[in-house]
């Protein structure tokens, strides 16, 4: 029987389970409101390496290894890795995961990669292409600033609408073995472009994509926002959250009661000077692993829609005057009691 429903979604007949996960973050995230929940908080944001890029690779390697260990597996048990980061040509993933010697699909969905990798991991397992697969993503404040804005040596000022890239990596083992948490469906996002041209205001660029994916998910699964305990976006921040509420209202859905944004949760913007909130593909990944999955395991939440959002720009497209399109990938995660 076909498992596709609606126009952009899949409802799995045999929903794969999340066997284990790991989160590793930098010092600033460790000092934030979720600080105590993360598996590892680095003592130094270079994680013992010489460059920021190598530091991000190390983050990803450690998160992957830790997740494999927490799931009680060996690395030979992992059939595929679906990994990605924010750097050009995915170098954090390439250099970080090389040593693991596991077949790899490198993914790029900007900050939405956590959702993209989990979607494809769930599809692979549900289709029988692997007993256990790994989804891992990372971001690092210093390497992302260099990639997308200015190197830290330049010491530029940050506008209030700018988000703070999270230093961190989250890894997830998706497999067939029964646990308390399963991925029951996905809604794959489309590229949505509202013509936002401000690279310092990613929330505004990504909110329309989040709205598109969330409303499509509700229509495809024939659900209302209240059918989810939480609808969790990745890194819209405070600015993007307001825009998302407005856009959803226009489509006839009020999600303000159930909405949560990882970027808003991960930092205390008042005391940590992070302006609009956290961002990066590490942001949603570590929040999912450290905060959201435990709630689902305990059954505090029965069903959530996890929607990491990404801004699909490069410095080349941006400097050539192109707008900043957004994308968002929805993953339905449920408590399996």
């Amino acid at each position, binding site marked *: 029987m076909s498992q596709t429903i609606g126009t952009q979604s899949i409802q799995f007949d045999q929903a794969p389970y999340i066997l284990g996960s790991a989160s590793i973050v*930098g*010092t*600033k995230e460790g000092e934030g409101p979720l600080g105590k929940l993360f598996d590892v908080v680095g003592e130094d*944001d270079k994680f013992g390496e010489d460059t920021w890029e190598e530091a991000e690779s190390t983050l990803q390697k450690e998160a992957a290894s830790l997740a494999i260990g927490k799931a009680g597996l060996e690395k030979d048990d992992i059939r595929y890795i679906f990994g990605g980061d924010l750097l050009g040509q995915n170098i954090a993933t390439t250099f970080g995961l090389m040593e693991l010697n596991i077949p790899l699909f490198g993914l790029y969905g900007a900050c939405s990669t956590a959702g993209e990798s989990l979607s494809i991991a769930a599809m692979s397992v549900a289709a029988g292409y692997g007993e256990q697969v790994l989804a891992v993503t990372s971001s690092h*404040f*210093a390497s992302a600033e260099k990639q997308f804005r*200015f*190197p*830290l*040596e330049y010491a*530029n*000022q940050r*506008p*209030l609408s700018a988000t703070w890239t999270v*230093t961190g990596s989250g890894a997830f083992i998706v497999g067939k073995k029964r646990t308390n948490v399963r991925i029951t469906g996905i809604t794959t996002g489309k590229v949505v472009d509202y013509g936002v*041209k*401000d690279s*310092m205001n990613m929330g505004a660029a990504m909110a329309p994509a989040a709205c598109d994916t969330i409303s499509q998910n509700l229509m495809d699964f024939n659900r209302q926002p209240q059918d989810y305990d939480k609808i969790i976006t990745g890194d819209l921040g405070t600015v993007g959250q307001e825009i998302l509420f407005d856009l959803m209202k226009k489509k006839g859905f009020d999600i303000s009661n159930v909405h949560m944004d990882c970027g808003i949760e991960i930092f205390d913007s008042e005391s940590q*000077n992070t302006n609009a909130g956290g961002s990066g593909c590490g942001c949603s990944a570590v929040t999912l692993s450290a905060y959201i999955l435990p709630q689902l395991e305990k059954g505090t939440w029965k069903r959530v829609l996890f929607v990491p959002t990404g801004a699909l720009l490069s410095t080349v497209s941006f400097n050539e005057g192109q707008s900043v399109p957004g994308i968002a990938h929805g993953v339905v995660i449920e408590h399996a009691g």
Partner: protein
Amino acid sequence: MDYVNAFWIGGLICALVQILMEKTKMLPGRIMVLLVCSGAVLGALQIYQPFQEFAGAGASVPLLGFGNTLWKGIQKAVDSDGFIGIFMGGFTASAVGISAALVFGYLASVIFQPKMKK
């Protein structure tokens, strides 16, 4: 009195630019180019020189002053060497500043490592 004038004029220029950074969507590079060009234009209009005599380092140190220096150098070189001075004067006049920035920038990069922002 020289110090006082240098202090408040320099501070005023920085404050105006800070407003540009906060209230417009202009990226830092564009603001810097705007400052240099404005300085050169104000120099050409014979406005910047008297202003600089009044404010001293308060007017010569910010980027506006760099634009004025470029203009003055070109003017001087055109007077003495003619057409070729257009390509010569700007760099001659700003040589000390540019070379010092390169040398000190290099030295700083040798001694210090970049750190995370707080």
